[in-house]
């Protein structure tokens, strides 16, 4: 009992308001619309109906519905809304249903709560119970979104494991559904148009939920009405964002290359710079091998703020040595050093990397700059009350004692 109440409370806090959920689920109405034109008196089943948002939508759209859930508190809520619900678990309910009796089976955020064997049984039973052309819809958190996969998913203690869309889609097809569509849901729409994609976007941007819509075999005159579902792709995937991120990166690189080209032209005039560049080149030859590429590759995915850093690295690697003037390299090294000085962990890493390049290591060590400092390193002080862990008393307690003390003294005086 207590467990169930907990889940209701949890849902109330984290799942979102009725209105919000409904708003989200409205997106599915367009997918089931053809069903209403084909079947008229048939019923749609919602497994794990919860507070009944979806049932309400079905009701409003004139579709007969039945909802099942194992949580009495949730069901009470549904009954209040005059919704048609039964307390039951999915498998036992389905097992009692006749073949070819339902037009739609939905399960929003259910499959991640059940064991995989049960999921397989559920898919098989759904196939049996659905009419020809009927739809099975699963919605579940999308592990393709890294933030979801690593954090949000585990906010719900009853979640068992994240299910990748490919697995869920494959399961439906394997057990006999005619065709299946995977669609990302609830992503931020503006992100699709965005050009300069940040690392944060890559990590948090992919659709946080996805749905699998599977259809049971049916004659073509029925299935063609649903073709639009299976022809288009929906949502925003990690790969798309990664691709965009790569493009952003490429643009920055190109900009940098152009800037460098100009610098090179200017430098060509300076005989000294040219000469020194040849000297410098000797020191950097060591960098121009595959080691550096490998080692610096992870840096590409660092925060956007690091862009100057990897453009710098990129130049080391891609520029033809004779044309690279020492001055530019110096500047980069200067910034790199200053950056590393501020980040002790990176510094350790960098010094490990430098071990592979003894000449460069020596050069950096001998650089006229032993310490380079930027304005970020300074003594800053921020004051907070009640900070020290040794405290046993709060400021308020002490204040109360002082007040008492002062009162006592006042009394003594009078």
């Amino acid at each position, binding site marked *: 009992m207590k467990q169930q109440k907990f889940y209701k409370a949890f849902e109330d806090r984290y799942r979102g308001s009725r209105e919000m959920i409904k708003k989200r689920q409205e997106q599915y109405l367009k997918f089931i619309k053809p069903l209403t034109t084909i079947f008229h008196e048939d019923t749609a089943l919602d497994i794990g109906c919860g507070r009944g948002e979806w049932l309400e939508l079905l009701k409003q759209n004139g579709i007969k519905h039945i909802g099942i859930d194992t949580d009495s508190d949730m069901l009470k809520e549904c009954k209040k809304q005059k919704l048609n619900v039964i307390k039951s678990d999915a498998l036992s309910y389905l097992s009692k249903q006749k073949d070819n009796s339902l037009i739609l089976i939905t399960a929003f955020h259910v499959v991640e709560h059940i064991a995989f064997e049960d999921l397989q049984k559920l898919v098989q039973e759904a196939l049996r119970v659905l009419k020809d052309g009927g739809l099975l819809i699963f919605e579940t958190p999308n592990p393709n979104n890294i933030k979801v996969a690593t954090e949000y998913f585990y906010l719900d203690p009853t979640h068992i494991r994240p299910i990748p869309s490919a697995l869920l889609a494959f399961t439906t097809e394997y057990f006999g559904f005619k065709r299946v569509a995977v669609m990302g849901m609830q992503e931020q729409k503006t992100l699709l148009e965005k050009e300069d994609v940040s690392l944060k976007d890559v990590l948090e941007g992919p659709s946080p939920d996805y749905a699998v819509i599977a259809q049971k075999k049916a004659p073509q005159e029925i299935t063609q009405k649903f073709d639009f579902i299976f022809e288009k792709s929906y949502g925003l995937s990690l790969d798309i964002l990664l691709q965009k991120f790569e493009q952003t990166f490429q643009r920055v690189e190109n900009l940098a290359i152009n800037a460098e080209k100009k610098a090179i032209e200017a430098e060509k005039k300076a*005989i000294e710079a040219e000469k020194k560049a040849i000297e410098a080149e000797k020191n950097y030859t060591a960098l121009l091998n595959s080691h550096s590429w490998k080692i610096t590759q992870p840096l590409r995915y660092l925060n956007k703020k690091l862009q100057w850093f990897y453009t710098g690295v990129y130049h080391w690697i891609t520029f033809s040595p004779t044309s690279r003037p020492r001055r530019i390299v110096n500047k980069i090294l*200067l910034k790199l050093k200053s950056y590393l000085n501020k980040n002790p962990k990176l510094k350790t890493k960098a010094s490990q990397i430098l071990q592979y390049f003894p000449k460069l290591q020596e050069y950096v060590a001998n650089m006229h*700059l032993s310490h*380079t400092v*930027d304005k970020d390193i300074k003594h800053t002080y921020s004051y907070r009350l009640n900070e020290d862990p040794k405290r046993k008393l709060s400021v308020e307690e*002490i204040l109360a004692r002082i007040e008492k003390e*002062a009162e006592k003294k006042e009394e003594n005086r009078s």
Partner: protein
Amino acid sequence: MKIALITIQAASGEKGGAESFFLGLQKALKNAGHNCETVTFISDESSQEKILASYETCHTMDLTDYDLVISTKAPSYAISHPNHIVYLVHTMRVFYDMFTKEFPKPNSRIKAFREKIIKKDTQALSKASISKLFTIGHEVTKRLKKYNKIESEVLHPPLVHEHFYCDGQENYIFIPSRLHRWKRIDLLIEAMQYVRSDIQLHIAGTGEDEQSLKKLANNKVVFLGRISDEAITKEYANALAVPFVPLQEDYGYVTLEAFKSKKAVITCNDSGEPSYFVKDGVNGFVCKADPQEIAKKIDYLYEHKDEAKEMGKRGFESIKHITWDNVIKELLSHSKKYDEDVLILDMQPIDPPVGGGRLRLLGLYHNLGAKLKSLYLGSYDWQGEKFRDHKLTPSLREVDIALSDEHFTQSNALSQAVGHNIIDLMFHKMGDLSKDYLMHAIYNIKRNNIVVFSHPWIYPLVKTFLTDKHLVVYDAQNVESYLRYTLLSENEACKDIIKEIIDIEYELCLNADIILCCSKEDRSTFNRLYEIPFDKLEIIPNGVFTSKIIPPNSNQKVELQQKYFKNQKKTAIFMGSNYGPNIDAAKFIATVLAPSCRNVNFIIAGSVGNVLNKESQNNLYITGFIDEDEKLHLLQACDFAINPMNGGSGTNIKMFDFMAAGLPIITTAIGARGIEQFGKKAFFVADLNDFVNTIESLLAEPKLLDHMRLSARELALEQFSFENISFKLGHLLNSHAQTLTKDIKVSIIIPSYERKELLLILLEKLNKQSFENFEVIVIDQSKESISNEIASYKFELKYIHSHIKGAVKARNFGAMLATGELLGFIDDDCYPINKEWIKNAYELYKSDKTIVGIEGKISSDHIADLAYRSVSNVGCEGLGFMTANLFVSKYIFNKIDGFDEAFDNPHFREDTDFGWRMLDEGNVPYAHNVEVFHPAHKKEIARESDEQRDTFFIKDPLLMAKHPKRYEQLFLFEKHYIQRPYFWKYFKKGLQEYAIDIQKYKEIYKYMPKEKDPL
């Protein structure tokens, strides 16, 4: 020394002469054995905002890890550092001499910005914490004088590489240069058109003006382009001379390089620094910037090659003194030393020491014991003061660093908002605005193990820099939270401020190793409010310089009295500043006392008199403000003091002045707050409406008055002399610092007086104790210190040679220095029977939480020998608590204020009194296995004779008065009153001495012989 050479690198990465200067200076400092690092700021001069940002970056940088910083280019000198030398290469010249060239038609915005930069530079470069300002040359110095009105000294930097040499005299003159208009190569090229001789001009280098210059050149001019360093030296070596004619060059290494190659230099009178190096006709020529003039000089040298050679040699000689060794020596001679042992932080100045707070600072730290030197870092809580670094006494250095204008602006705004000056209370939030002060504090915290916070305000700002190695001390001049509450609680706006004060003070108390309290009252407040354990709370009272304020001798007194007063009446003095409660007291004297006691002269001294109606009555004198000398003379001229205070907080420090001058005092209880008499009679406490009677009865007893005179001086000397307080405090700090990182559990305390041999035996025996974590504190009051004769022991020994006399005081002093949780007292002529003495005591103490102390067994010899007095506590367990073998927890010792020093001189009964007070706190078991041997004393020794021995009973009435019931039992048990011949004689003397009324103690009075007092 760890030195930071602060350099500026242009964000564009461009390098020039300054960079090789930095390199050379760093190398030279390293060669001189210093750990010199360059700290490079990247300065972006692409916009006004970025320029200002780089000033701010430098200003806020914490470089306190470096012992010394040397700043160079703009804006590196904006740095805040306590040991800062400027070696100025240049300010941003485009805002100085190059301004009109770069901005021929400046708009008002750029003009204003120029003003701003010049002002910023002036501020930064005139910071008083900069110990010396050097420039690389006269041009820079002149510019500083002209634009910033700042004086500086020229220190020419030498060349970085000195591989130049002289070879021959070929028919060319040589100039290496960047081809830039400021270098005026065009002037040389033009000159070559007028040169008649068969000579060439060799130009090495490239630059933006290369093309135009090449167009200008005739066939006598050869452009070598960029050539190697070796090629350059070779060009120099074989040249006839070096023409170097830049426009207002700040330094110009070319001159030095030419002279190093023994070549004459031709320069122009507007060329800047080269014209200082070149002496016309001596080592080259200085001529007008005119091509024909220059051409003449070239021709002259061509025609007089020998003279050219001589000039070159003289040039070589003229720069011989410019060496890195000399530069480093000169630079470092201005490096400041901070080699003090104790750092004291507060935000007021000490000098002049007016007012209680500053006087306390001076008193406490003016001459710390254990030869500790102290550095006081303070500031001013008002605007407009300058940096100050001076020695107040041979061992106390005061450095005051002004707070920033921004700090005052913000603090004034807030003060106005809350209607109360809160600059001190808000220091923890605003201190970051005063980097100069803060960097001084941080720098010295990093280099000092003992850090004293006088007031808690600075603590939050620097707490992150305190480590386990720091002895952190809070010198609590008040219980700030309580004091501020009483002052500010009516003010709604100050509610949060009070909370923060509590927060800061509480945290400091928690993290301090020792808290110094002014009085018992403050100490118990700390304990009640913050639950700070007593063993961390030490009482360091306020006091008086007893060597400065001294009683007069009788001749002096007569003289002074005649000088000030024309009559024979007794004279009473009151002193005070212009402060509310003082004014009330002065008014009371003027309106009540003076009219009532016509036979007494009354003096009201000090600025309190400024607000009084000066209409003097014939027995009332009002002086107004007086200086220290006059104060002393007045004190010495008077007969007694009055202190009719009826308000105010803290201790009345004037009481100490009165006592030191040997003046008996009649005071109110408020006036005597926090001041104990330790059994002495220095002052009478009376109600205001009883003052007249008390004065009259005191004057009626001239003998009493004389007695009190002595007592007052004695009390001041023994308890409130800053000389002694500073001595004790120094040892307190030193003792804690010595064993800060050691796990001391037991402190053995040995007072010693002229028993060197016995003491050394005792130390040897202690060395054999099986227990490990203990320290031994010896307070030796002998004439000579034996610190040289003391071996090293496995325990921590703290040997203190003290001039302060008295065994009771010695024990209290020793206990104050103790860092163990359990204190063990033993006498210098005793020794533990076995090596388990400390171990058994400590184990027993730890076995039961109710145990606060242990009375150890004392065995003796010559038990039945009448010629000896054997000392043992066998048979009187739980009665005597003899200090030859007594353990007590440090917590309880501090809580019950240790031994009562009223029982000193001669010391007797202090142990019993202490033991009984200890029993009020918990159990004090008698332990047979914690045993000490005390040798019997032969009776013929003078101080052991019967009457001598019985003089000690003078202390019995004191004990009786403090513990009537227990004393009664002891009295009957010991039967001294029957057995000792002189018991009653000295008992009665004690009654009189301590003004005790025997009638109140009926059970004792019963036994007292009733004949008339023989005294």
